[in-house]
Every structure is written in C-alpha cells, then in structure tokens.
C-alpha cells in the first residue's frame, strides 16, 4: 500500500560516533556493559522519588549534566572521530518536547556553529522513541538524494523528575526495578540517560576526505500502525513494513541480517508485537537470528534511545560482540526469539538491524552494514 521504495542513490556511511550513557562517556563502558549484560539500573539519586511507585533508573552518578553541554560533547566526540576537515552541512536533533526544548536547541545550534562550523539547518525531532531514528533516516535520505554531503545527528535525554513522574503515574515503569525484554514476567521499562551523536556522509565525501567509515547505513524504513494512541498494532504489521522497507532500500534479503537490536522496552504488549513483526519478516530464520534489546542495560533514553542503540549496533557489527538481553527470567511463549542471553562473540555479521517503535504507532528500522 505504500510507495515503491526506490533503491538508495548514494551510499551513506557513518564516520563518527559520540555517546554518553549511565555507564559514562564514550562507547567503551557502554559496550562493555552491553556485552556482559550488566544492567546500569540503580536507585534514583538525582531527584526525589519518594512519592513514586518505581524508584530506579539508569543515570550517571551525581547531579545531571547540562543537556546542551552533553550534546555538544557528543557532537564534538563524533566529529573528532570523523576526522573533520569540512564542516558538516547541518544538524538534526532529537529531544524531548518540554518547556526547555527551545532553549536547548538554541544553545546547541549557536555553540555547534561556533565550535564546529555547523551552519545551516537545525531540525528538531520530538517524536518520542523514534525521534532519533527518524532523524537518522531523514539524514540518510538527504545524503542519498544528494541534498547534503555530511550531516550530524545528535540526540539527548537525561532522566529528570517530570517525565519520571508521568511515566510512573502511567504505570509504564517496571515495578520490580529491572527491565526484562521478551521475558516472562516483564514489568515495563526504566528510564536511562542517553546522549549520542553520529556523523553521516556520502561514501564519496568520506573517501575524498580520507575518513575511515565505521559502517554503512545501508537501509532504513519508517511506517505507522494507524492503530492507536499508545498501543502498538498487536500483530506488528507496521514494524514489519518498516523492516521490509529497510531491506528493500538496501537491496538485501532477511537472510543477510546477522543481528537485530530490538526496540523491546520490556513492555507486556509492545514486546509481543515486535516479536510478531520479526516472525513476519524472518519466518523460520528467527530460530538462529540473534536478537537483544539493550534497553535492558542502558534503560530507555526516550528520544535519544534509538541513537544510543544505533551506536551499540554499529559496534556489535564491528566487533562481533553481541549485546546481551539482560534481566531475562524465563521464556515467554509469545516471544519465541533467539535471544542473546549470555556474553556471545560471533564472526562479525555483514549486516544488522536496529528497530524502534513509539507512541502513535510510529516505527523505524535502520539497517547497518559492515564498512
């Protein structure tokens, strides 16, 4: 029912990544925790949670960093890795929409211009759990169609009292203080700090600059369930369409995928919907396709989570060290997946997927290829 997805025109590569999570700054502590399945959740110490039913999250110790500062650090780290010579042509941000959003956008824009020469567009995505994956997909599309050579995508969410309170009031936070994606007795999500940035550019641009690609963004897909305000389509048909669109754009088949970083926040309904989407796309292949949700380790960083998971998936592809699906108790017959439950190193796969789904039935799939 959707338009024919054209093949991408210009290959898009990832040349820089920056990340801050509850585990600390840089990819190493995050990768180590994900590879070991060491969840980062602890008692919330950043603000008062005495009135909340759930009192745990994955946040950095001490007071919260300033979000704009953390975003600028992540952007700087990503551009540093990208070996920047030419300033990027624009900045796509993904942020929670609240009373501070405008001020954060303005500060990051102005300082990124001064510090890194990023002039031009700032587009700010606020679409919940697919905000940063939508930004990545749009950046890739703009590059693929020759509208930009090099773009920075940055996203940030730091655990704060308002969202914590409303997620608690809405019953979304796990009452047992752990996140257990696809597991029996999963109880919901926990919030986590996440600030990340990625530099995307055309393969030609990277080649001409002499930059070394970390990975390719080989395909992407976006879809909507057209189903409900907050509940996913139970059959996961929307998410399956997003995955199919990503495969088509990349010119690949399901058999080419060697790892899936799932969206699964540990929610009762959402995890089942995603498992069914994966069944629709991969069929019997699911039996040996490694799948994990790293929200079980770093928590749900809302608008930034997809970019955090993108960073982890790129590194999983490069190293062959697959992130562990932590918090797992026992199988749920509704989620028959080949979950990564123990530290696992494989021959680095050629391609991996990272999936995200959000309120409003929004779905995205990003298909990452080895550089």
């Amino acid at each position, binding site marked *: 029912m959707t338009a024919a997805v054209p093949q991408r025109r210009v290959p898009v590569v990832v040349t820089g990544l920056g990340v801050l999570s509850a585990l600390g700054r840089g990819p190493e502590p995050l990768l180590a925790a994900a590879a070991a399945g060491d969840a980062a959740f602890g008692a919330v110490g950043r603000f008062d949670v005495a009135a909340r039913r759930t009192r745990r999250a994955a946040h950095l110790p001490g007071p919260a960093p300033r979000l704009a500062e953390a975003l600028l650090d992540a952007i700087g780290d990503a551009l540093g890795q990208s070996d920047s010579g030419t300033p990027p042509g624009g900045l796509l941000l993904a942020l929670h929409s609240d009373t501070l959003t*405008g*001020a954060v956008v303005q500060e990051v824009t102005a300082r990124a211009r001064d510090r890194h020469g990023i002039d*031009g567009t700032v587009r700010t995505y*606020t679409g919940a759990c697919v905000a940063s994956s939508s930004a990545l997909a749009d950046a890739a599309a703009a590059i693929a169609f020759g509208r930009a050579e090099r773009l920075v995508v940055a996203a940030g969410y730091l655990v704060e009292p308002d969202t914590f309170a409303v997620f608690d009031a809405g019953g979304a936070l796990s009452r047992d203080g752990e996140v257990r994606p696809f597991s029996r007795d999963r109880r919901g999500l926990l919030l986590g700090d996440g600030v990340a940035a990625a530099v995307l550019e055309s393969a030609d641009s990277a080649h001409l600059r002499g930059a070394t690609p970390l990975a390719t963004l080989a395909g992407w897909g976006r879809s909507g369930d*057209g189903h409900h305000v907050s509940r996913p389509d139970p059959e996961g048909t929307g998410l399956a369409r997003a995955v199919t669109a990503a495969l088509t754009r990349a010119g690949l088949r399901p058999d080419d995928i060697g790892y899936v970083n799932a969206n699964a926040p540990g929610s009762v309904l959402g995890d089942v919907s995603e498992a069914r989407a994966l069944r629709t796309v991969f069929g019997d292949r699911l039996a040996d396709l490694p799948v994990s949700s790293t929200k079980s380790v770093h928590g749900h960083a809302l608008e930034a989570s997809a970019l955090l998971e993108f960073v982890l998936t790129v590194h999983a592809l490069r190293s062959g060290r697959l992130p562990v699906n932590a918090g797992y108790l026992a199988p749920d017959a509704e989620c028959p997946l080949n979950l990564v439950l123990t530290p696992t190193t494989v021959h680095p796969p050629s391609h991996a997927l990272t999936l995200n789904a959000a309120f409003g039935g929004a779905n995205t799939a990003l298909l990452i290829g080895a550089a």
Partner: protein
Amino acid sequence: MNRAPEQYDSNAEVPFAPARAADPGAARPMPPGSERAEVMGPRDGSRLAAAGAVPSAEGPDAAVPGVPGAGDATAARRTEVASTAGSRAGRTPADPTGEAPSVPAGLRVLGHGEWTGAAGETLPQVAGFIGSAYNPLVVEAAERCLRGVYGGPEAADPGRTGGTAVVVGSWSGDLGTAHALHEAVRTGRRVQPLLFFQSNPNAVVGYVAGRWALRGPVVCLRTAGPGPAALAEALDAAELLLLDGDCDEALVIAADTGRTPDDPGSAIAVLVTADDPATGRGAP
C-alpha cells in the same frame, strides 16, 4: 478505530498551571528560525512565500500557551468539553472558499483544512486528551482536511490512507501538557495518569492515524518558527519522505498553541503528494 465517547471530565482532572514567573523558557531569546538554511530541502530553492516569517522575539515558552491562568474564569470556560463526540460528524469539513496554502516545488496539494478560532468557534475536545489545547488543535485541523478529501473515515480509500504519512510541526510544542506536568511535580500534587498518554506529541498522531487508518511514517518536529514557518518545515520533511518512498501522500500539520490564556492557538493541515512527472508519482 471508532471515535470513543467522551469519557473524561477534563476540567475535573487537569491541574491548570499558572504561568511560571521563573519559567526557564521565558528568558529565551529569538529562536534560530529566521535564519534557517535548507539543508534538506529541494535544491531548486522553491520555498513557501511565508517561510521566512520572523517569530516574535519572545520564545513560545514565554507564555503558557493553551493553559488558562488560574482563576481565569473566561479561560477556564474555553477549555470545557465543548462538544459531544457526535458533533464532529456534522461539522463543515474545510472552508470551501479558503485557498490552499502554497507548497514547495515537488509537492501538490490534495486537500487542506484549518482551525483558527474565527467566529467564536470553540475547539472540540478529544477523548482521552486533557487540559492542553495542543492535541485538540492537531485533531481538528486534521479532521477538517481529511473530511474535505474523503467526507469521513468510513469513506476513506484504504489504498491511499495506507500510504499516508503524518508530519506535525509545532513551534510551541504541547506546552500545556508540559506545564501541567511540571506544576504537578513541582508542587507535589498527584500526577494525572492521563498525562502519560499525551506526554509526547506522537500520541495525538496515533489518534488521528488510527481514526483514518493512516499507515505511513509518523514524524513530529519542534520547528524553528510558528505558523507558516512551522508548516514550511513540516512540508520540507514530508517532501523528503515522499521522495524517499516511504509514503505516497502526507498529512502535514502545523499547530501552535496560543500565547495567552484566551488564545487556544491555531492549526493548519494539508494533504500533499509528490508532484513529479519524471517518476509518474503524484499522478491523480
């Protein structure tokens, strides 16, 4: 999805937030809207005539848009549940004399609708959404646009709606909800569980998409400027989605809550498709 009956008494539920004197957004200088360059847009440079509209020197956070001040009886009345669910069915879809907004090259307008609050109209409430004018604004503009195209959800062509994206641009964002939540947390009051479901701008898109079976991508943007600038930015995003092929049509909505308690704001919705003779896409 059928429209559910009104089930919530929004007045009873919502902790209306007074304007915060120390609102961090209040000091926000002019957003980078008027100097927005176009990395993502078509290279032919064709833009909305009004895209360069310069936002006010005060950011949208300066007031408490869509949330009446405490004790403001007039404003409080404006947020009462203003219509029954059924009343929407008899509503005039779109102003038949209204001109379609101009769109960038590469797009063609299939329908449009807007809500400006003209002639003393009251913004219909939306079941399950409380307090803020933002969500009713998005829904009303979308309804007027889609009713003008299809007549009603039952008459919508699933072959078209199945490939229709929804892109919402807003300068103000849903500050009514954000302020209500912030005040509840700040003062230690109970946080309304319903606020969870509207705590991000995707939720109301899910409402519209479910009602009309729109199954293309869902994108929400906080834009660099209000009104025409918000629409222009959302149209840019939609144009790329159409070019990229994840949808055949896009319902593009710009919604901004008002700057004072008496002003619920305005919203416009435009249904667009690609107008590209080279690919044949966008053909009627």
